[in-house]
């Protein structure tokens, strides 16, 4: 009786596989693929235009300043780089630059170091290990691709936090192959000790900061999606496994000028790739009760 079932299932499977497929299907599948690709391209261009309109004013003004300064004098550009920062950390210098170009494959990675003696050695080691990893990966990829592919790697850094207590240096890695991919790495340094801070260090021990932050980020995602139909995060996606459920304690973060925590997600982490790197500033009142005094507002 029971062992009869697999045979019946086998027979059913044979019949299933014999369901004839019309010749026309192949053509219709290819037509659907072509149409989707075409419309996607149009939609993408529209989205960029829309974003450009919204951000246009500020971004243009900012870029103009930087470009004007950089172009007007080589010395000014160098002077900007050497501006001393306050506290235990004296300044950030470009320790070395890795540059490579072979046909369509190229890389530019600035490796900065923080001047501050032994106290910041751990940070400098971490930075160098990070950039070394990226460079090694580039060299391996470039060797495989030879002259065939397009591959452009760029790693730049900015100081995103520099207040009495905290210092944070942010690395933006842009990898352009057929399309671009951005990712972010941020090192936060406690100036009083010179050590690298984790997200957990910003909060009181035993506080459930992950739950608090997760909750607030979910609210912000929903609010942004409600406000703009072009914004999409994986929050209620039909593919349940992709949805943002809980913040990882290893996520990139920094503290902005207002003393608020900013969480930074890499491209593709919590939203479709076209959303790029996404950031959420957590309002001070959300973290006030559980924050480590002196680090967050």
């Amino acid at each position, binding site marked *: 009786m029971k062992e009869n079932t697999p045979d*019946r*299932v086998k*027979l059913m499977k044979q019949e299933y596989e014999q*369901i004839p497929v019309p010749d026309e299907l192949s053509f219709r*599948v290819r037509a659907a693929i072509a149409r989707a*690709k075409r419309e996607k391209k149009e939609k993408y261009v529209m989205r960029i235009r829309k974003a450009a309109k919204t951000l246009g004013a500020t971004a243009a003004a900012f870029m103009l300043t930087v470009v004007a300064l950089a172009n007007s004098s080589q010395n000014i550009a160098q002077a900007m780089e050497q501006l001393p920062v306050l506290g235990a950390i004296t300044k950030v210098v470009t320790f070395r630059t890795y540059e490579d170009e072979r046909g369509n494959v190229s890389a530019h990675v600035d490796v900065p170091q923080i001047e501050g003696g032994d106290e910041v050695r751990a940070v400098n080691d971490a930075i160098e290990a990070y950039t070394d990893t990226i460079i090694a990966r580039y060299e391996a990829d470039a060797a495989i691709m030879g002259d065939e592919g397009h591959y452009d790697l760029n790693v730049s850094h900015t100081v995103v936090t520099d207040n009495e207590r905290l210092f944070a240096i942010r690395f933006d890695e842009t990898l352009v192959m057929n399309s671009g991919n951005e990712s972010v790495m941020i090192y936060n340094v406690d100036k009083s000790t010179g050590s690298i801070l984790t997200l957990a260090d910003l909060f009181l021990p035993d506080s459930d900061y992950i739950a608090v932050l997760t909750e607030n980020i979910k609210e912000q995602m929903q609010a942004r999606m409600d406000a703009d139909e072009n914004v999409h995060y994986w929050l209620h996606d039909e593919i349940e496994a992709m949805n943002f459920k809980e913040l990882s304690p290893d996520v990139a973060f920094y503290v902005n000028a207002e003393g608020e925590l900013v969480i930074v997600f890499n491209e593709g982490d919590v939203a479709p790739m076209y959303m790029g790197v996404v950031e959420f500033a957590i309002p001070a009142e959300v973290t006030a009760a559980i924050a480590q005094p002196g680090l967050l507002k």
Partner: protein
Amino acid sequence: MKSAKLQQEVEAQILASYEQLYRLAFTYVKNPDDAMDIVQESVYKAIANAAEVRRVDTIKGWLCRITVNTALDFLRRRAREVPAEQLPEEGREDTYQDTDVLRSLDILDKRERMVIVLRFFEDMKLQDIAGITGENLNTVKALLYRSLKKLKIHLTEGESLE
């Protein structure tokens, strides 16, 4: 994973498996024209949303899921438009392949049918099926056992009639 690369992967998977998607759709709508419409619409959705795929090895299941959802939407829409008893019977006869397999699947409800098709005809793992249907593993197992039981009863009756 780069979005352009993902789209290429999705496209490759579609071209490799569109005949399976067609058969899957066929078990729901039971005629070639509607099944082709459903595959076409599903393929369009898949390319349009390729960026949402997380891992390359889940693409096939994701395509099946889109196809099943599209087929179910289609059936719901049709049910609203034309009350079932008014469906032109001879129009369906022309294209309906009244094989044992389709008759057998008819006695299963939509969830049971999907589990049987994916598990036995598409040789998927129960865990992957759970991922596609959004049910937990135990529910999928329960559906499978219930379906087999139903099928066996049905098939046994069919045999005894002959």
